[in-house]
């Protein structure tokens, strides 16, 4: 089973690839440090929708019961949460 640390880089990359289409605008310079809420203006509900779209891309579900605002802070924090909370294949 793939460990969360091993999944993290690809999750950051996938999230950065999804974000421009998701938010409907160009987002140059996206990285793990990009702030989802403060800089990109996302709400927690929009972040949950982003997780749904990531699930479709990954083919796996994410357990969001323990998710909190801190996990939505940056691309990296969201990727870290997803990596640690992947469930069975969707």
């Amino acid at each position, binding site marked *: 089973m793939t460990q969360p640390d091993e999944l993290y880089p690809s999750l950051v990359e996938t999230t950065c690839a999804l974000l421009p289409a998701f938010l409907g605008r160009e987002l140059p310079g996206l990285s793990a440090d990009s702030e989802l*809420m403060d800089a990109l*203006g*996302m*709400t*927690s*509900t*929009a972040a*949950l*929708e982003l997780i*749904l*779209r990531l699930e479709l891309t990954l083919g796996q579900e994410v357990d*969001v*019961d*323990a*998710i*909190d*605002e801190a996990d939505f802070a940056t691309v990296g924090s969201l990727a870290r949460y997803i990596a640690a909370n992947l469930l069975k294949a969707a």
Partner: protein
Amino acid sequence: MTALVAVSGHLPEHRLPIEEPGQRLGLDPMHLKVFRRYHKLDRVGRDPHGDLPALLRGALAGLDALRGQERRVRYVLHARAFPVVVPYPMRPAREVAEEFGLGHAACLTVSHHACASGLLALDLAGRLLAEDGDPDALALVLAGEKVFTGETELVPETSFYGEGAAACLVRADGERDRLLAYAADLRGEFDGDGVDLAPEYQRGYADCLAGAVRAAVGRAGLRIGEIALILPHNVNVPAWQRVCRRLGFPLERVVLENLAASGHVFCADHFLNYRTACERGLLRPGDRYVMAAAGGSAGGVFSAMVFQH
């Protein structure tokens, strides 16, 4: 101290899946999936043939404690999430008050705290009765609204409103259920039309609501561990997960089972959840419980009341 004498509730039989109002409002299918999968919303109540007096009438019909006590009622307060709930010159609370022998009572609307106006109405009812000084006098708090406009169908990004109503008899002093404390945190910084305000409100929501609960529990001279139940306003499950984490309170003791089938019933959620708690035997005499709500229109209000059953 203000006391709740009796509580009744009414929900329409007809339910719509959330996809129906959602699609009509143009919500993205993925957005609806978030509501269903994460927010745990399923259906909302609608009375397609009844008006607002019909909903309020349904709640009053179940308030057995009112029978024979009508002359004791001095005030009828209608708690509303929205200030305008019917076309002028309809007066739904006055209409049902007169039908139920309460035409002599002063009839008021309370809406300043949006979805937290039910708690404000309870507080106001107790204060009015205490000021009058008649220990036998009662007040009637009504809550419940129709989905009257597009604005009343959806809490953006958060929940769907459901039709329903509740009625609560209040007295200025009594043993059961006694109001121990009330805390209302008014956040004017969330008032305005700026596009940044809604995300700011969402970000501050859990901290502010947990803070209101903590303040009310503290004012009651209690610790959060001494609270048996939280009777919430039914917005969605993730919101309450976050509030509970901040409080260190188990989510299983937040009465959320009406959320999926009924949605967010404006200011009536706490009363409907109170009925559920009583019917399921979740409250024993002496138990302390919290009613908590947030109001999100024209600013933010985060409120909590502590009661002893």
